[in-house]
């Protein structure tokens, strides 16, 4: 008496299909699970035993051997409860599946309660992606996970709330009532709506900051905002995800998959929205980058295709900030453990905010608050951000404090929609240009590509050289300035980089500039 069916486990953010073989033979009653199960799976036998019994079936008092294959991959999680239970029922022939069903082509996932009801699990989407890749036609899973799996085209998803219903379904080979209510994945896409968003029109004054943000987003340049407390840095940052272009469908799946694996579940109305993550500065390196004994994605992966906002950048521990360097460069992060090595995508726009000095008021115009920091204090405060990290932040902009008159009076303020239009035009130009380069945005250019695409006329060359001498930039600023100039030229619809583009780009190097600290 033997049965074979399929389950799935998650490694990193991808699902692995597991063959599950159940053999029931005469002998001392016991359940043996082989094939690198973790403790959650070994405990499954108790849950499975109770669930089968409480669903009204006799539990076989025989020797049960279960093999999880391939045997060399470590299997984790409670998602194997359901296939184990179904496997035992099939092997003992307590359930005889309808001939219309091909058990081999069904993927079972789900956790069982002792009373036989199904509990939702994490990482359903990853399993569904794996199911599609391995040509499964059907998935049987807990009802709460149904919508998630339905995001994937070409798989019939059946959600149930109790083991008994599954047995019924397997015997009948169809779902008479439930089929009608089952939601087709096409419907799901239509349900997804942008909902209410914070608009940039709420930000009064700050024209030049909005402009800097437009530039940063258009070329996907990482952004640093420097300003006194209360100047609206956080308010501005929260609005940035909405001026990014809408996620493409495959990006939606990628992002939803990461959230699913991390155990955040699925929020349909937010699917097309870019993620916005704002970890507090008490975060650990593991929390930010990902990892742990059984690795989980960190904040940078949760911000994949979206915005990672680090408020009060100088307050983050130095080691935590330095760990950002490699993911910022590669757009992904590798976590290595003794038995596993996982890769999480981490392609995000870094938006950071900090005060100009430790008291917060250096160079600001806030009434009754003048900066009392000594020059060395300011230097020390700023040196908390290392050069290599600053190197990866192309746009640095000073956010001024806005007085009450401006807050009350400014009638016309640039809206999110207006900014989005400007940005999407610039992105189109870039995609046209980089068709054959394998990159998408100006910020991704390497130095060879900078030479090729950021040509200057003699006027611009002159302005660049003069301002380098005047403002005392370091050599490492050069490429950044050229890349940002390219983006500004794209925004202005200009093929060549002109002096005014250079001038604006230079203005976005707030921290690099040589300024006398008095």
């Amino acid at each position: 008496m033997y049965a074979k069916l399929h389950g799935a486990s998650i490694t990193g953010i991808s699902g692995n299909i597991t063959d599950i073989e159940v053999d029931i033979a005469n002998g001392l009653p016991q359940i043996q699970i082989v094939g690198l199960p973790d403790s959650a799976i070994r405990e499954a036998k108790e849950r499975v035993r109770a669930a089968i019994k409480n669903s009204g079936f006799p539990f076989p008092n025989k020797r049960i051997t279960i093999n999880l294959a391939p045997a060399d991959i470590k299997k984790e999680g409670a998602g194997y409860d359901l296939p184990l239970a179904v496997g035992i029922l099939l092997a003992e022939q307590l359930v005889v599946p309808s001939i219309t069903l091909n058990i081999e082509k069904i993927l079972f996932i789900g956790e069982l309660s002792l009373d036989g009801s199904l509990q939702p699990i994490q990482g359903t989407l990853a399993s569904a992606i794996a199911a599609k890749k391995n040509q499964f036609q059907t998935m049987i899973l807990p009802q709460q996970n149904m919508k998630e799996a339905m995001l994937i085209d070409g798989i019939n998803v059946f959600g149930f709330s109790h083991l008994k219903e599954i047995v019924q379904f397997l015997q009948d080979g169809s779902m008479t009532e439930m089929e009608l209510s089952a939601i087709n994945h096409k419907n799901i896409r239509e349900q997804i709506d942008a909902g209410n968003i914070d608009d940039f029109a709420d930000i009064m004054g700050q024209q030049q900051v909005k402009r800097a943000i437009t530039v940063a987003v258009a070329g996907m340049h990482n952004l640093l905002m420097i300003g006194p407390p209360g100047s609206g840095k956080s308010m501005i940052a929260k609005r940035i995800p909405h001026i990014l272009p809408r996620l493409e469908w495959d990006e939606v799946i990628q992002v939803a998959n990461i959230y699913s694996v991390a155990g955040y579940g699925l929020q349909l109305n937010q699917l097309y929205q870019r993620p916005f993550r704002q970890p507090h500065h008490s975060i650990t390196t593991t929390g930010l980058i990902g990892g742990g004994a059984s690795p989980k994605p960190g904040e940078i992966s949760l911000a994949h295709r979206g915005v990672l906002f680090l408020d009060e950048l100088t307050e983050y521990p130095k080691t935590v900030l330095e760990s950002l360097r490699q993911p910022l460069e590669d757009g992904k992060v590798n976590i290595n453990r003794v038995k596993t090595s996982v890769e999480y995508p981490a392609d995000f726009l870094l938006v950071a905010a900090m005060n100009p000095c430790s008291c917060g008021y250096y160079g600001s115009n806030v009434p009754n608050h003048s900066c009392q920091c000594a020059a060395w204090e300011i230097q020390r405060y700023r040196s908390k951000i290392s050069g290599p990290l600053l190197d990866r932040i192309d746009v640095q902009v000073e956010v001024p404090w806005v007085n009450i008159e401006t807050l009350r009076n400014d009638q016309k303020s640039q809206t999110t929609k207006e900014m989005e239009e400007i940005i999407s035009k610039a992105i189109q130009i870039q995609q046209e240009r980089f068709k054959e380069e394998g990159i998408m945005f100006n910020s991704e250019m390497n130095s060879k590509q900078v030479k090729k695409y950021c040509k200057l006329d003699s006027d611009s060359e002159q302005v660049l050289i003069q301002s380098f001498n005047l403002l005392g930039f370091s050599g490492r600023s050069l490429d950044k300035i050229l890349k940002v100039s390219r983006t500004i030229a794209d925004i202005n619809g200009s093929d060549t980089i002109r002096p005014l583009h250079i001038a604006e780009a230079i203005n976005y190097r707030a921290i690099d500039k040589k300024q006398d600290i008095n």
Partner: protein
Amino acid sequence: MIKREWLFYLSTLQGVGWKTLSQLMNLEQLDKISERNPLELSVETGISFSLAETILKQISIDSFKDAMNQQKKWEQQGIQLISYFDEDYPVLLKEINSPPWIIYAYGDIQLLTEFKIAVVGTRHPTPYGQAVCSAFTKDLASNGWVIVSGLAKGIDKIAHEAALTVGGKTIAVLGNGVDVIYPRENKAIYQQILQKGLLLSEFAPGVQPRPGFFPQRNRIISGLSHGTIVIEASLKSGSLITAKDALEQSREVFAVPGPITSKESTGTNLLIQQGAKLVQRLEDINNEFPYFITEKIKINNNHNNKSEETLSLHYNEKIIYNLISSIKPIHINHIIESVQFPISEVYENLLLLQIKSLIRQMPGNFYIRNS
């Protein structure tokens, strides 16, 4: 000559400061000091017995030789030692209540014989103070005055810089050894002064700054100078100490008035209340020194004729240049709101004006005219 060497030698001993040194000066034969016992020394000079003991214990032929060698080393390095008894010792400094017995000079000591005026003020000047300090100092320096200040940050630094930009002369009086650069951020200006001006200190080379040293050196700043101008000072400012020293030394005190609402002008306005001369232009200072024949060197007087007609600015540049004042910095948001052209062009024109060094950018995206 012997007295000078002994003076220097004694000054290098532990426990000997200005006061002890003045008391030891009372001795008839300084070079015979080691023949006395502590009690005699204490009675003759008025120093405490224990101090007399410590001093006598340190005196030896070897340590004397060491001190002489050290002095030679400094002289090779270019640091000159000027004692109270030397001809080079500035006459004005001799007149004050507690003249330093020894000063160390690093740079051009010819400056000590010229007409000197002290420019002092707060370490946290407002843009108004910065502009006024720069303008006054340039006028004074190009008129032949040697500018004396303390190489602190803020007004002191601006004064030194302004004097040097017009090709004038300047003396920095330090609260530490002349070969110690403090504060670090003044390294560039320190080196310029070393080349073109003079660094002065009563502390031996290598001595690190201590808070108590700065009020002490203020008496030298005012003592060296015919008059002292206070540009901006709050009520707690060290510049008021310099002004008080100047009064005690019966030198002229000038103060630049400021708005009564500005914290950094409370001190200067108080000085004016108490009788310091209010100055508005160069003549206000020169009039007080009829004997100072304005040499009218006019070393480099093209710094003030930057009227915009002569500048050949583009139309847009002119619009922006006119928005920017030389006293109150303007924020970029105000510029953007006041002009009719797009932000990129504002940035372009601001950068071009900076390249022409007509304006400069201040922290926080503020702009101000270069005075």
